[in-house]
């Protein structure tokens, strides 16, 4: 189906009306057949998304409050024998999900601090201070971006077991997870880019007022960087919450383990209903954070695509 050729003047006006547009133009949208077709497509897409993306999560929430027998024998039935809210309290208290939840929070907090400190200070050096050796630091950071993480796994583990400068083993300590988390080249790259785009006039003005590099960093650069710090923070917390292999290797003491490490080992010794409740609790925090900070998330993901492109 072809549309009639649009006069150049109208095309220019349209372009001005919507600076960014998609394949279907406004003109086409006004035509009923196009509109209905696309509306139906979008409706189907929406239904599909709901079933595919939310479906499993809804099931999880349902299982969390269903008695174990029902989960095992009729998982898709709607509460044939009522709900089992005590799954949640059993998970929180008896299985000590509360403790592992707190461990996850502690891990996320420390990792966040480590990442923010390393990323902002490194970006400050690379973007604002720019000493002569900055390009070596930059190259060193970028090299790690291109090395697949598999290479790091075993030797990093041995470094943790026997760290050169530190002396004592970092195994079974939270430092063993926090410190390596700081070495994120991706963070350094996006914060450096952000700093690069900050207006230099403000820095000059501050310097005129006698600000040294530390004042400049603390009172000028950081406050202006809230958007990028938001992105880094959100990703740091979520990445830490999801992290599995590294905490598995470093934290052997079950009392220190976060949810992601502990949940699989609970499988064999826990009632299915209670396990589901524990899984639901573990999902809650990231999902809630996502729903609140959606914009930051999605813009950060887009950024990620831009960096890799």
């Amino acid at each position, binding site marked *: 189906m072809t549309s009639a050729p649009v006069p150049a003047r109208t095309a220019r006006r349209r372009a001005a009306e919507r600076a960014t547009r998609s394949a279907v133009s406004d003109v086409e949208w006004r035509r009923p057949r196009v509109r209905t077709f696309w509306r139906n497509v979008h409706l189907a897409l929406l239904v599909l998304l709901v079933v595919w993306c939310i479906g499993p999560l809804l099931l999880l929430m349902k299982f969390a409050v269903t008695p174990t027998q029902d989960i095992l024998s009729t998982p898709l039935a709607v509460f044939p024998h009522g709900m089992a809210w005590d799954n949640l309290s059993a998970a929180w208290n008896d299985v*000590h999900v509360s403790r592992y939840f707190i461990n996850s929070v502690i891990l996320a907090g420390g990792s966040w601090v480590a990442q923010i400190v390393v990323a902002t200070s490194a970006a400050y050096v690379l973007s604002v201070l720019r000493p002569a050796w900055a*390009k*070596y630091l*930059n*190259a*060193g950071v*970028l*090299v790690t971006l291109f090395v697949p993480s598999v290479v790091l796994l075993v*030797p990093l*583990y041995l470094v943790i*077991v*026997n760290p*050169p400068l530190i002396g*004592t*083993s970092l*195994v*079974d300590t939270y430092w063993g997870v926090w410190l390596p988390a700081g070495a994120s080249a991706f963070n350094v790259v996006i914060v450096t880019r952000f700093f690069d785009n900050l207006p230099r006039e403000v820095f000059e003005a501050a310097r005129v007022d006698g600000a040294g590099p530390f004042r400049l960093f603390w009172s000028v650069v950081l406050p202006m960087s809230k958007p990028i710090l938001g992105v880094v923070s959100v990703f740091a917390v979520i990445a830490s919450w999801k992290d599995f292999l590294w905490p598995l*290797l470093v934290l*052997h*003491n*079950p*009392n220190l383990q976060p949810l992601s490490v502990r949940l699989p080992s609970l*499988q*064999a*010794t826990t009632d299915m209903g209670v396990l589901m409740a524990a899984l639901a609790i573990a999902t809650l925090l990231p999902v809630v954070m996502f729903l609140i900070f959606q914009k930051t998330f999605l813009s950060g993901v887009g950024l990620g695509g831009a960096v890799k492109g």
Partner: protein
Amino acid sequence: MRSSRNTALAMAGVLSLGLLAACGQGGGQGAATTSAAPGDEKVTITVAGLLPGAEQDAVDALDKRVTEFEAKYPNITVEPQEYQWLATTFAANLAGGTLPTVFEIPVTDGKTLIENGQLADIDAQVKALPYADQFNDAVVANAKGADGKFYAVPAKSFYSVALHYNRNLFTQAGLDPDKPPTTWDEVRKDAKIIHDKTGVYGYGMMALDNAGGWQLTAAANSRGGVVQKTNADGTYTATLDDPAVAKHLEWLKALRWEDNSIYPDGTLGWAEINQAFGGGQLAMYTSGSDVYTALVQNQALTADWGYGLTAIPTENGGGALGGGTLAAVKVQATDAEKDAAVKWIDFWYLSKLLDEGQAVADAKINFGNGQAVGTPVLPIFSQEQWTTSMGWIKDYVNVPLKDMTGYTDKMFSQKLIGEPSASTQDTYALLFPIVQAVLSDQNANVDTLLAAANTQGQALLDQS
């Protein structure tokens, strides 16, 4: 990338950094024993305590025992640490120095750790104990080095593999729960009857990880075969293709594809099979004879649940695979620490087997927490000693011993076979995928799989 030259420089820098550091790190943690006059000076040791997440009552009990010990030896301070031996974490803990002074290892690891010089030489201290020569031969073999010296002490949980069964399901299927099967053919027959009559799978087999290889080895041992032979010159030969192994795999295959009476999931590990059993999803399985304790701890079994225990069926001169736990001392311990450590080992692990007062105190605490008291374990010392110590605690025994006679009647007379001495875990690792194959693939060729595994197994033994 702006400058590939800078990248190249960076990579060179990184590499040289790594080289320098790696070369300098060769030493790692060497063994350092300083000799100090033992006995009088104050010494503090950390010891393996309870599993993480243990009940508060048990923690209090341990603390009470610690107080008693410190009263007896005023110059020693004992600090218990939560402890759990895991295959994936032990080596790193050992190297990272985060193990307590006194720690526990499975019997199978004893030999290699001693050979690698990773356990302290405690020969002098152990020989000073009055019962140093009364250890049961079978349990002490892996605690001594090639030089005959003690590097570890048999401590607890000595078991032989046995057959666990659900008495209720037997009754429901019309079988006599007091007459559990005594041959593998009978096991197969009973499993089929149970599945046909009740719909519940009659048998289950571990296959998830090395535990699957462990159980296959146990089954092979019970059929008169072994998966490894020690040669006269000290080397080892892999015999994974022993006919007994193949026979048992064919037996599993028949249960799976002809009778459909075996739990079809190839992902049951040690804990998962306990869970399935406790949940009434399978009627029989083999595992260590002391598993009842874990069933009580994790599946909340009680004495009237319907648990039954009998000896593993044997044929062709086969026996039961046995294992246990040793206590060892960190290689970096000083002489004073080693003295204190062995005294603790004597007090905590062994005194309850030899001293009535200690035995009763220990039993009382477990009984009070609803934990299992009296689960049949193999004696670390002599059979008479075991019988005596069981007599001391008979008022506290809360396990259904009358339903375990199938095992307890035979546990001393049956032949005991040790786990493979060399590359034990690696051997198990070669075996369990074959169990998985048999359970998941109707056309699995047992002989080919075993032949391939055996070649690999031999290569491993030749390497080490």
